[in-house]
Each structure stands twice: as C-alpha cells, then as structure tokens.
C-alpha cells in the first residue's frame, strides 16, 4: 500500500493513554461520548435542514425561510418543540416496549458511527472486522422498528413494522454481498485498511465493472435498509399514515426521526469508505503531480464531501421516485439484486485471483 497515512483511532489513543494515566484514558472516553452525542445531534439537525432545503429546491419551493437567515435555525426550533411536546403513550400499548423502542433504533445508529473512519485521526474504534460489525449493528436497528410497531397496538404500525422486518432482513443479504466485493479486493475487513487500499484509486472504478455494480447494489440495498424512498414502505405516508411510528410523539418520535437521518449518513459514509475511497483524496495511481494537488484538501474534508455527495444522491432519489410495493420490493431483492450480486461477487473473485483491476500494485 505504502500510502504513508498514519491512522490512529480514539480507542487506540485511549488504550495508549490508559497505562500512563487513568485520567487521560477516561478523558478520551469522555471525549468520545460527548463528541459522539454532539456529533449525532448536530449532524441530524444539519441533515434534516439539508433534506428540507434540497427537497424544496427539487420541487420549485424555497423550504424553510423564517427562522434565521434562510431558515437555518428551523430544525433547532423544531427540535426544541419536539423536546417539549407531550410524550403520548397509547393506553392499550405495551408500555415498556413502547418506551424502549426508539432507543433501540438510536443505539444501532450510534454503534455504527463508532467504526466509521472519518479521517486518519477521527475514528472511534478501528476493528479488524469493521465491515462485519457495521453490517451487524445496522441490522440491529430493525429491532427498534419491530418493537415500535408491535408495542403501539395499532394495526397500521404493525403493518409498517412487519414490512420493515421483511424488508431490512432481505436487503441485508444483498448489501453484504456487495460489501464482500470490496473486502475481496482490499483483502481486509478493517475499515481503515480498506480506505488505505484505495490510495491509488477508488474501488468503484478500480475494480473494473464489478465495482460499479457492487456500488449500485449496495446503494439500493442500503436505501432499503434505512427505509428511504423508494423503499419507505415501513412508514409509507400515503399508505400507512406514518407506519411504525404512528403512535409516537415528542422526544421519542424525534429519536426515530434522528435515527433515520443519521442512518442516512451512516449509509453514505459506508458507501464512501468502501467504494469512494473514504477520507482518501482523489488519486490516480502514478500521476504524482495530480495527486499532490488533490492532497491539498485535508482527508476529513474529502470524507465529508464524498459523504455529502452520497447523501445528496439519496435525497435526490427520494424526491424523484415513487414507492415500490411490498411484493415488488421482495421481487427486486430476491430476483434481481441477489442473482446479480452473486454473479458480481463471483466475477470479483475471479478478477482478484487474476489481478484484473486498474493500477495493480
């Protein structure tokens, strides 16, 4: 690889500091906790604002314009409103589960954030099974949705939850299948090493054809996993009023909402990390002068830009496409994405064995 990037994670630094001074170790842990909470809150609000503005401009509107210049404090105002709203628990609901469900959703999102390498130095934990870990914890989010739908004791919620369950579990398969392509090419499951392996070119184009196919499959499958249009069946507004979170209000609704939007970021970050080089600047193997220009932008900015691009793409989908039907959703997964994913994985394996990719090193 020889890229010369030094990667350290917060976990590593905490571990390093721990033997020296317990206080410093605890400091790093606290930094991680506070940082993560703030990060999630700000990120969620920024994404919601961005979504509203992007949606508005796709639709020839202006979006929020009143609170602050161009409405930038609108989401802050909304958040405050949601925090102070009454938290209604339906009388016949399963109270404990109803109260707990949003935390499950939120938890899955937060756990996924832990492993994301946002820059060489900003990564909470760099596990050697990073890809597997992310797949595992994002799948955990469905539990919150299922519990929410079940505990609300509302038929619409239940329908939404059942849709979510079927959908998320099905699409995990395809998502994993396309992740494996990158794992094959980079030879590692550790996210930081996957990023480093893309120093000479991102896997989306360096892995010939299979990279693009894997990226498209990953994008589609992840959209389904986070229930974004065109796969927003669990909450399909025109069908199920609000799906699994019909009965939620106030803070708990806000948590579902936040989880949804941060999930979008997680998916974008994953797509960035795996296919678009993560925090790695745009490099073309061997063209050093060009690479030097690209290096002027810090890695963190590269990561943010790439993630923002994918987030924009996801929003763009949402504000263009209609929603699929339940059976079409399943058909798309099992009859289209999965076979293509398998063939793609096989092709990727062949490519790796014979070294058929651009800029082999």
């Amino acid at each position, binding site marked *: 690889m020889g890229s010369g990037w030094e990667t350290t994670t917060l976990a590593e630094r905490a571990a390093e500091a721990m033997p020296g001074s317990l206080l410093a170790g605890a400091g790093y842990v606290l930094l991680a906790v506070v940082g993560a909470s703030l990060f999630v809150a700000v990120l969620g609000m920024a994404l919601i604002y961005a979504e509203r503005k992007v*949606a508005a401009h*796709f*639709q*020839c*509107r202006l979006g929020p314009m009143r609170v602050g210049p161009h409405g930038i404090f609108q989401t802050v105002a909304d958040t405050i409103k949601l925090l102070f709203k009454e938290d209604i628990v339906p009388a016949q609901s399963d109270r404990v589960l109803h109260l707990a469900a949003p935390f499950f959703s939120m938890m899955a999102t937060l756990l996924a954030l832990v492993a994301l390498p946002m820059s060489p130095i900003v990564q909470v934990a760099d596990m050697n099974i990073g890809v597997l870990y992310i797949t595992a914890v994002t799948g955990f989010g469905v539990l919150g949705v299922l519990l929410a739908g079940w505990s609300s004791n509302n*038929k*619409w919620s239940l*329908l939404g939850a*059942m*849709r979510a369950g079927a959908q998320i579990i099905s699409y995990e398969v395809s998502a994993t299948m396309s992740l494996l392509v990158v794992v094959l090419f980079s030879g590692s499951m550790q996210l930081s090493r996957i990023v480093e392996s893309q120093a000479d070119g991102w896997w989306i184009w360096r892995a010939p054809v299979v990279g693009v196919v894997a990226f498209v499959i990953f994008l589609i499958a992840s959209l389904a996993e986070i229930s974004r*249009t*065109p796969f*927003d*069946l669990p909450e*399909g*507004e*025109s*069908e*199920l*009023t609000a799906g699994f979170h019909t009965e939620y209000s106030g803070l708990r609704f806000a948590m579902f909402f936040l989880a949804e939007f941060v999930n979008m970021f997680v998916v974008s970050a994953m797509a960035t990390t795996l296919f678009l080089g993560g925090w790695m600047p745009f490099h073309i193997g061997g063209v050093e002068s060009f690479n030097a220009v690209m290096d002027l932008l810090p890695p963190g900015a590269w990561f943010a830009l790439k993630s923002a691009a994918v987030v924009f793409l996801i929003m763009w989908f949402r*504000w*263009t*496409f*209609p*929603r*699929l*039907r*339940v*059976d*079409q959703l399943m058909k798309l997964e099992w009859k289209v994405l999965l076979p293509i994913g398998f063939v793609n994985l096989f092709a990727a394996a062949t490519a790796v064995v014979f070294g058929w990719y651009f800029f082999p090193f």
Partner: protein
Amino acid sequence: MSAIVTTLEQRIGRGATTQEFFVNMGPQHPSTHGVLRLVLKLEGETVKDVIPVLGYVHRGVEKMGEHLSYRQFVHLTDRLDYLSALANNWAVAKAVEKAAGIETNERIETIRTLVAELQRIASHQLWWGVFGMDLGAFTPFLYGFRDRERITDILEETIGARLTMNYIQPGGVMFDLHPDFQRKVKEFIAYFRPKLEEYETLLSRNIIAQERMRGVGVLEAAQAVALGATGPVLRASGVAHDLRKSEPYGVYGKVEFDVPVGARGDCWDRYWVRIEEIRQSLRIIEQLIENIPEGKHLLVKPAVRTKVPEGITYSQVETARGVFGVLLVSDGKDVPYRIHVRTPNFNNLWAITRIAPGWRVADLVTMISSLDIVVPDIDR
C-alpha cells in the same frame, strides 16, 4: 376461555395460521382524499374486502336546493366536486335553460366550453400530482400544483374566484371574459406543453410507477358500465362514452378532439386516459381560443327568479370525473320542487369494492387515486 386457548394451541401445533382483521382507512387518512372512510378487511397486507362509509361531509345540497331559486342553487354545485366547479355550474345552467327554454348565444357557449376545458386540465393536473403522491413520489404533487396555479390565475382574473367559481349561470355567464384571457391562455398552452412531457418522464415512463400501475385493479368494461362508472374510469375500461362526443353540448360539436380509451381497465389505463385527456383539452382550447364569437355574455337579468314550467328535466355534462347530471323536477314555481344531482364520484367510488379485493394495501391506495375521488361530491 379454555376452549379458546386450546384452539389457539391447536393452531400453533398445526402451524402458523393467519387471521383476518378489520382496519379503518380514514376518515382521516392521507390517501382517502378527504373525509372518506374505508373499512378494510385485511389478511396480512392483502385486501379481502372494502366497505366504504360515507357521509362525513353530507350537507344536504338537494334539500337546500328545494328552498333556493335556480340561480342560487348554482353556487351549491361549486361545493360538490370543487375541482370541476364550472362543469357542475354548467350542468345546472343547462338543465334550467332546457327546462325554461332559455336560448344562449354562441359566445356564451364558447366561453363555457373554454373555461370548463381549462378547469378539466386543472383538475387532471391536481389529480396527477396527488396520484404521484399516493405512489410515494411527493414531487409530482408540487409540480402539478405549480402548473395548476397558472390556470387558476387565468380563471381568477375572469371569474374572481379560485375554487368555488359560481360563474356559469342560467342564461349566460356571470362576467365577460377578461381582456387578457386570450393572451394568457395562449401563454399557458405554450408553457404547459413541455411541462406535460416532463409529467410523462417523471411518472408515466418511470419504471416504478409503471410497475405500480400495470395490471393493478382491472375494471372490466361490462363491470364498469353496470357499476355506473363514468368519465375516465369508464373510458379506461374501454367504453368510449364521452358526453362531449355522444351528445355534444356547448361547442363541443364544432371542435375536433379524440376520446382516449383504455385497453384493459387497469390503473395504467386510467392514468393514461387522464394524461391524454389533458392533451385533448389543450387541443380543444387551441381551436377555440383564436376566435371567440362576439355577443352578450348574459341574456337573463340577474335579479330575475327564473320560473321553470312543470315537468322533469334531466341534463348532464361531462366533468373531469365523469357524468354530472341534474334531475330537475319543477312544479312551475321559481324554486325547484325537487332537484337531484347525479354526481360522478358517488357512482365511481363503488368500483373500489369490486377491484380492490386480492390486492395489497399499497395497491388500494393506487386504485383509489386512479378513480380520482372527490369526497364532497360523493357525500353531497
């Protein structure tokens, strides 16, 4: 109690079984387009039965009509199918003119045809947007409304109202056309033709939308006729029944236009018929807008309470949703003895009970939307 427990155990022992359940879709539901309530019998996501429950916006228009003069009754029809208020006005005006023998001139008929066709386009634009929204695409909704706004502005300039127009009166129209009307309509046509292509790209050619519409909710021709469906719903089933052609009123007899019909009667056909109707309406307007005949716009003094000779008159017009009929029973006074309105939506709605079973909840939403329901028109 123990009996129930044992049967449940037996069921679980035999393997998983499903249970049908009822769920209320509406009166407050985003896809019932108003306060319509559908009681659904579901098995999982599959719709087993649909029972529409009506009357949430029943206002007793027919009873009110028995106390109002004919001219006063016109404004109540605005509030039935508010998206084709002008066509509804026209139906009453036509009935009264027919019954009382009021002659109209060429200009009045041309103006009526023009505004009614404009409103048909506006209505279909709104439907298109809402249909997109029901399929889960929010953007068409706003595009549809954006373009509808142009027509609303044109009509507002002439009529002075945006939704409940009360424009077409027995014996004429309330105001003459605004001097800017012709220019603005031409501008609108030039503006809207490319936009219609965008509609097609955004929704008609979209693979997801096509998959959602293809073969969904097939209403066969014989069934549609027996269910009294009219308008685009009937035409999409392949029955070329269009009052504008079969018994031309206004100046429809003098303009050229085609009647789009469907081949199978699924949601796609209903969708396509409406989109094509927009094109045909544009064609009609283009033919009429150039030379609107001169003449007076109102031939009956507004303060006169028209007396209608004794008898029954049934007159109907083709609104954006189907046949709007007025059955006018007069006993020779200046108020109707009985006035019955045959609203297209009341008759179209029941198609849902025949086409929905066996499809999923999501398809039900598509089907309701493809029937283009306006609830106040159902409930009257």
